């Protein structure tokens, strides 16, 4: 079977498209982002723990925020009881951001890495 030159061009384009993510990452290291916990409030804490366990917060923080939004705005409930039985005030600015006051070094680190846009500030004021 004799192939025309065009099919080789086609194959070349296909292969380049397929390996383009590999080409774009040539020589790059696989460095995950490290969100910084270095804020005055966190440094002053005796036991450094978030509202819920870290693993849960990593996967479900947005679900928790949605839950808080509905509880506060729609049901008027201002207190959240976590899995350890501790009570927290439902507030992005007064609870979450009190400790995590370093948005650039905390939130944005992972959000930029994973390409997930933050839209807190479309409603909330900084």
């Amino acid at each position: 079977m004799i192939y025309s030159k065009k099919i080789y061009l086609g194959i070349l384009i296909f292969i380049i498209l397929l390996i383009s993510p590999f080409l774009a990452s040539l020589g790059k290291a696989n460095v995950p982002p490290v969100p910084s916990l270095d804020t005055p409030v966190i440094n002053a804490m005796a036991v450094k723990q978030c509202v819920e366990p870290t693993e849960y917060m990593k996967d479900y923080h947005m679900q928790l925020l949605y839950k808080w939004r509905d509880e506060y705005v729609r049901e008027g409930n201002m207190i959240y009881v976590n899995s350890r039985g501790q009570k927290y005030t439902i507030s992005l600015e007064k609870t979450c951001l009190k400790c995590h006051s370093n948005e650039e070094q905390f939130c944005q680190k992972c959000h930029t890495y994973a390409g997930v846009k933050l839209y807190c500030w479309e409603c909330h004021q900084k």
Partner: protein
Amino acid sequence: MKFLSSLLVVLALTFIAWFGVGVLKLYAVFGIGIPYLALIIFAIGFTNRLLQLEQNNPENSPGTKKLTARRLLELLYFRSFFGNIKMKRQESKEESGPSNWFWAGVYIFFGALLIILIRHLRLFLNPVPSFIQGLETIDSFLTIGFPHNVIYITDIVFIVALAVIVLRSIYSSFMKNTSASLSYVPLFLLLGSALSGIIMVYYWRVDIVSVKELGMGLVTFRPFIPTNEGSILFIHIFLVSSLLVYLAMSSRKPMYQWSTSENEANIG
């Protein structure tokens, strides 16, 4: 009930991935080995298929120019789904009607799939290019319907289109007579891949940073194995890998040969 055997095959694959990761803890096999292997098989198999495209009858060939034009029309326009004849020459309107709707559906289906694939590049490119970020933002701007989450428009469109394709092929007599018993496997693989992906966004959430570390590990050849993520991530990867292998190895003829006259000159 031809689709049942295909459904069983895909369910078995899902079970294998769940068992391999959830019980046997073979994270490296399902997270790194299988994706690499699937990509290599896909590259070789698809190249082979591209070469098969070239095999046309030289005695009755329409010539490279016409052939190229036809293939471009097929690739960019899905000509064979459009009845493969010009609208003006269609004799009865009834014939052209349903196939036009199907053609539109095919366009939407592949369009949604393309956008979904491009969106996934955010997990394999660091930093995320702005056009992928933009696509992500546009695709996920709706939040109505699911009260607690964003919806990807393309996810919904893709699942609906896929459901239509599956139901259409189960109920339409044409497909019933022509389809082999395992011809639903790619459809169910697509459905399984899409559903496992959607489940990760809405129900059993995974740490997206670990997922991207896995993806970046694959493209930089510096593997990272997320061991504290749910099996659902590995089921998703395994089903997509299976689909790639299917696309490379299936005995189906290339798309262009669905219409017999595709590689031949017009007669008369």
